[in-house]
């Protein structure tokens, strides 16, 4: 494994697991390969969608698959760029069993000059019997604003000002 990838992977893992909604959900990225990502999500009562059955809300599956596919898309980049989601389509095959972890995997199946095509699936006991399946497309947008210097500057800003830094940037 080359040095660039060796540094990039833990940074990506940290960025996904420790920030914002990723941290709130509390999933773990268990595998990051080029164009292939896997993660695990433990059951949480805060995200229940059906209070009668205890089944988690579909929105959690949307977040998990979007994150997993998005991370897989980022691993395909050769230059600094962001990969906003263009569209995401999910099919729910059966409800997730409460109190059981959910496993998610995503794969980039086509990499073109502007668009990345991904598919992902979420399952519990058997990968062949998924709870949901999705296809997602991501745009490649090259941007100077995500240079290492800029990212570090924002990080530093946030460290000092906390969440206020977000609000200031949003209001600008």
């Amino acid at each position, binding site marked *: 494994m080359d040095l660039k990838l060796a540094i990039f992977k833990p940074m990506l893992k940290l960025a996904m697991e420790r920030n914002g909604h990723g941290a709130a959900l509390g999933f773990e990225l268990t595998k990051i390969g080029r164009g292939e990502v896997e993660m695990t999500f433990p059951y949480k009562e805060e*995200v229940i969608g059906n*209070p009668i059955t205890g089944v*988690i*809300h579909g929105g959690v599956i949307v977040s998990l698959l979007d994150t997993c596919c998005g991370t897989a898309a980022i691993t395909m980049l050769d230059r600094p760029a962001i990969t906003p989601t263009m*569209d*995401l389509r999910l*099919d729910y095959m059966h409800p997730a069993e409460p109190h059981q972890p959910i496993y998610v995997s995503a794969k980039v199946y086509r990499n073109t000059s502007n668009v990345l095509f991904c598919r992902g699936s979420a399952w519990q006991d058997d990968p062949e019997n998924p709870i949901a399946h999705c296809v997602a497309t991501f745009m490649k947008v090259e941007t100077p604003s995500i240079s290492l210097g800029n990212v570090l500057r924002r990080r530093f800003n946030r460290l000092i000002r906390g969440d206020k830094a977000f*609000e200031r*940037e*949003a209001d600008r």
Partner: protein
Amino acid sequence: MNTKLAQMQADLLQARGLAEPQKILDIIPYSSFIGAQARVENERVLYWLERRASNIGNPSLPAIHGGVIGGFLELSAAIEILYTLDVGQIPKVVDFSLDYLRPGRYKTIYANCTVLRQGKKLVNVTATAWQDDPQTPIATARCHFLIA
């Protein structure tokens, strides 16, 4: 189990009677996890999601997590069914399709839903999300739910 269901159905009737869709959101734990709220405005239900740090996806922009926008629209669509139709159980989502049109900036997101078709078993709902202006949506979604 049955008492829980009866309680939920009573809550649904009360929410419709009082025209307070927020009472339906309160039944579902996921809505407070992301911070979704609802009220009736111009005879439609307006859903909104105030900004909070735990909904951020990309901290360097900063932008709202795409999954949160998706989850919020899916939740709104389900509430729209529970509020406007005579349904006594949480609808089961079958499929969900989301187009991201603009980045979700770190501020309040609003949404409206429309039930396009209601069958005996299946309901088709569309949801649109915006921030500054309803004419410039940040995302649109459509979903199918089983209600029986």
